[in-house]
């Protein structure tokens, strides 16, 4: 096999590994952006954060929100907002750091945090 073809195949292998690793990182982030309270589960996203901020601005205290199952859950909005916002910062910052590390890894073993011998 020519050197050029070998290099191209190596790169293809690297891309497959990288894509899968990025998907894994996304899965981990999604799972960490889940928040359960009062028997309901919420996905922390921009809509939820913004809506809660809006409720606080309107001096709402106890509100009913629909969770991922569309079940109505009563929450105390101030505490809930603080919790989800701090979780959002924490998770997305970690995601950013790990994503950047992945983006800069140009070899399969670096993507996987292994040494060149695969250990």
């Amino acid at each position, binding site marked *: 096999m020519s050197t050029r073809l070998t290099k191209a195949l190596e790169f293809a*292998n690297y891309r*497959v*590994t990288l*894509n*899968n*690793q990025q*998907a*894994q990182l996304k*899965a*981990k982030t*999604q*799972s*960490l952006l*889940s928040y*359960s309270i009062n*028997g*309901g*589960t919420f996905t922390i996203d921009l809509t939820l954060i913004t809506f809660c901020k809006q409720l606080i601005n309107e001096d709402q205290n106890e509100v009913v929100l629909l969770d*991922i*199952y569309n*079940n109505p*859950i009563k929450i105390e909005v101030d505490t809930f907002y603080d919790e989800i916002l701090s979780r959002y910062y924490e998770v997305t910052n970690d995601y950013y750091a790990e994503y950047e590390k992945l983006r800069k890894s140009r070899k*399969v073993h670096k*993507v*996987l*945090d*292994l040494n060149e011998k*695969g*250990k």
Partner: protein
Amino acid sequence: MKKESNSRGIVMFAHNNEEIDYFRLAVVNALLIQKNMGIKNITVVTDPHSLSQGEKTLGKRLIKKAINNIVVIQKDKEFKQKNIRLYKDTSHTTKHLPFYNANRCDAYDISPYDETIVIDVDYLILSDTLNHCWGHNNELMMNWKFQDIMYERKDPSLSRLYDMGITMYWATVVYFRKTEYVESFFNIVKHVRSNPQYYKDLYKWQGTLYRNDFSFSIAAHVMSGFVDKGIPQLPTTLYKSFDTDDIHSAVDENTIVMYLEKPRSPGDFMLTKWQGVDLHVMNKWAINRVSEELLEYAKS
């Protein structure tokens, strides 16, 4: 075991066959559960042979440290001899071995807890995500949606009992509270388990193997008023690898590096690092091969 008020705990079933040490997997997973979920209430249902094998290889002290409630039952020998499954240790090694899964339907009666999560011993707990279940409004939850960790691989045959059939729920992880509704659900599961031929004809599942996924899916269909996908899913996605995959190494108590078989090139693998998300590892030999490393990480 003395019952606590509003108790919560994990239940696993571990019955060895000639090749696979399920009890060892249960001990490894119990320690991972303690480490990653902070749960001490762990019940393992096993049989005298699997327990004595575990005591011989792991020692009573380690078993006691990992599991605080062991329930010993006698196996139904006739069922064991009939329920033969094809196990794979990657595509290179395949073996037909007995698969003893007859008592999962008794989880409701066996569990000493008010809230229980039943998990397969090979569903490795690498995070605290399942803690989202405790105190949930839904009294029964299990997944029908799953995601292969090799994102390119798709297997539509795992979505339904047969092509035109009902949606398949995975009995790999089941959360339940002790309520009348859930008791009735498990009664249906038991009925399927005792009358497999009748339900096989009715729901047309493929093959001769009895799987809990089938009986739980049928019970879910019946108990939802014959509506598809009527039982809510767990608040976590079910991630799985296949028995054609292998484990390269365990890096720490929440990270493993996997060999994943490429979809269009059987026997050829790529690597992936899986971290901080629970994972169903179908290749049992692979877990046993890294069990020493996992035990060390989980114990420390």
